[in-house]
């Protein structure tokens, strides 16, 4: 017996829009927060692809940036800390006619959720993961994050961070992500393009979004990045060259690359799973009515 869930169709319902600051949805981000740039970029990307808002599910964990699903007019799931990835994968496998975008912060994705991040990439699940990377824990008022730089003084590291930061781009490459990009909140159009291409990409798309925290990170500020970022698209980088991608992934200093680091074609999890290959799971019949032959094995 088929579920009555309608198949997602391109023309169904209104387009996606940012609703934060409008009607009764008040922003929970500080004025000037980098995340405003990211939410605008997500809206722009989805609109560019003309995906109706009802066919988009935004999934997040916990943290300042994880409030993002509430600020858009799509479906959303605002889960628990660090678990955006498995929820997003579950949504995607339930109905892979939907566009699934996971969003969250560096603590959520690279700290408590690091294990899920790695496994989602090796599975090449066809979804987009935008990590608003501000290199600090903001919602808990300023502790070191997995991407805080060596020596950075925070509430939890008054003598300075003594652990090497996670290198998200390298981690993504090592884990088998098939679309690895980095954007900067100070360039919304560029970020929107990276996200749109990530949605269009067949497979796991990771977008590291440099998204400064204006309250708790006084080092990695908008100015810090404006002075350092440069676009890979205009610097002769070949995103199909894994060796070059590794070199760029490890570049972090006076110059910080943004843009598409790496992309590759590989079958998605949804294509390889024998059941999902038959179409969105939610549209397939459920139950065992009329399947009495199954019981033969117990005789």
């Amino acid at each position: 017996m088929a579920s009555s869930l309608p198949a997602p169709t391109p023309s169904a319902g209104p387009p996606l829009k940012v609703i934060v600051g409008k009607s009764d949805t008040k922003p929970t981000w500080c004025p000037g927060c980098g995340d405003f740039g990211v939410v605008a970029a997500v809206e722009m990307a989805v609109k560019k692809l003309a995906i109706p808002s009802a066919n988009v599910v935004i999934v997040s964990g916990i943290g300042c940036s994880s409030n993002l699903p509430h600020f858009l007019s799509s479906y959303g799931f605002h889960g628990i800390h660090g678990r955006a990835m498995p929820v997003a994968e579950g949504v995607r496998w339930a109905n892979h006619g939907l566009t699934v975008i996971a969003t969250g912060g560096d603590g959520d994705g690279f700290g408590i959720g690091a294990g899920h991040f790695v496994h989602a990439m090796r599975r090449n699940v066809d979804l987009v993961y935008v990590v608003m990377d501000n290199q600090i824990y903001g919602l808990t008022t300023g502790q070191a994050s997995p991407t805080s730089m060596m020596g950075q003084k925070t509430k939890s590291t008054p003598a300075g961070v003594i652990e090497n930061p996670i290198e998200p781009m390298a981690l993504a490459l090592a884990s088998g992500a098939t679309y690895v990009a980095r954007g900067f909140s100070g360039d919304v159009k560029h970020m929107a393009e990276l996200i749109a291409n990530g949605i269009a990409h067949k497979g796991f798309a990771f977008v590291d979004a440099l998204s400064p925290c204006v309250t708790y990170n006084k080092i990695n500020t908008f100015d810090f990045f404006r002075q350092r970022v440069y676009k890979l698209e205009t610097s002769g980088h070949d995103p199909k060259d894994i060796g070059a991608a590794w070199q760029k992934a490890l570049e972090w200093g006076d110059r910080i690359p943004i843009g598409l680091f790496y992309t590759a074609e590989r079958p998605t999890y949804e294509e390889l799973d024998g059941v999902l290959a038959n179409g969105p799971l939610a549209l397939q019949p459920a139950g065992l009515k009329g399947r009495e032959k199954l019981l033969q094995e117990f005789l």
Partner: protein
Amino acid sequence: MTEISIRAGGAAGDGIASVGDVLSKSLSRMGLHVFGYNAYQSVIRGGHVWFQARASRERVHSQGDGCDLLYALNAETVRIHLPSLRRGGVLVYDPENFAVAESDLPVGTRALPVPTLALARKYTSQPILQNAAGLGAVSFLAGIPLDLLQKTLSDSFGSKKGDVAEWNIATAAAGFAHAEAHAGASDRAVRAVGAPKYLMAGNQAIALGAAAAGCKFLAQYPMTPASSIMHWMAGHAADIGVVVKQAEDELAAINMAIGASFGGVRAMTATSGGGFALMVEALGMAGMAEVPLVVVESQRSGPSTGLPTKTEQGDLNMMLGAGQGEFPRAILAPTHPADAYRAMIRAFRLAESWQTPVLVASDLHLSESFATVDPEEIDLAVDIPSLFTVPAPNGQEYLRYRYTESGVSPRALPGQPGLNYVAGSDEHDEKGHLISDVKSGVPMWVAERVKMMDKRMRKLRGLTADSEGPVREGPAAAPLTFVAWGSTVGAVRDAMRLLADQNQPTNLVYLPTVYPIHAEALGALLAPATRTLLIEANFSGQLGRLIRAETGIHFPNRLLKYDGEPFYPMEIVARAREVLHGQ
């Protein structure tokens, strides 16, 4: 004989589980009721493993006490199990493996040496083939016809038939003939009584029940004794259209299931206590976001890693309290495989009707033991209603978490235009908007929080009304009332029969739904009880504590066991006699 118990023992890797499978299935194909118990250790090679297949014309609810036939693959098996060989029993062994002294045999038993290795050597030097000869000899003594044994053996090789299958079939015949020639007529033999029955392990019944209930997504991380739920489902996934995901850990497993349920399919996860401990935070999220979810918790001996391959009912407290804060949940406790099949269907219905997590409490003894199921006990034609509970939008604002009398609000599924909403782990208003940050503590939203909490918790009333209440078995009035839950109920049922055979009537009150407690019904069932005896496989009597907290009824007499072994009917009988005699 109307009943027989066959025990086989050896070292891990000797193939004891396969011997047990073939024996159990052959007996169930004779139309007998069978209970198969597999005792093993957390090792792949070495150690001691044994299997007991108990078969009877009457329904059997446990592995029983003692055995009539003992097939020993090593001397250790003889040392451990020979004392359990009942009067009239026969020990089957190969003198080439080890020697048995006549004087070691219990009074009234005998030994049947069978050259199993020599019979097998005709085909291969692989010693594992000796089991086929042993099976043949045991089958002769048990009354299992040779052609039936050979058919079962052949079926056990599935599609990979070939030389090995042929060798097994021929060697089984040789073992059978040897016993026929040397053992004389067997007075232990049972006879076929009717049409074949299904033989199912609890976990197979759980997986089958889930699929019949419309489950389309299972995410799980391997952990004994829950793993075989995933194995059955994965083995049938392509055929029955269920997506099975082995997750990177239990945190991912439950979150994937919640995502899939939110996304539009019936979804579940399964684990044991250690994995469930990791799932606790997400369980509360399912309660908060009002996402239907079924979690099977197959308990094993704790605490911590505990005894990974041994049974216990020690996780009830954890299941009751899992998750910060309070949210509605139900905990079902099936007692045997057919019951587990039906419990899964009830669990999915409850989870979906009440949009909240439902736990199914199994344990190693239920999950991994085999029991026969009458074909009429399994009905695959389960009615599966649509997941939608909202009509298409008609211009009115859609409130995902609308306040309702029942506590259940209309549920939309992503993809449906005009009903877009955000489900969240934060406290929220009727629209699903957060009231946890900029609104929290503001008087108007303080009141909203209370209303939303009350709405969710109202579902407990419905869960109570909609779930199965306590059950009494046996005469309404009896001098002793057993109180039990889950797989333990099986050994109690067998103990009650043993007591009844000795003209000692008893009855039993058990709880198919251990939470929410049906306090009034339970009070009414227990009111006439003159003496009660609480039976639980844990240290502190966790169900007893729950019932006392919810009803005030106290159970001073207890039989609590936490040695990892399932209950044996005779130990229940012994404790019952003590209680009846005022001890």
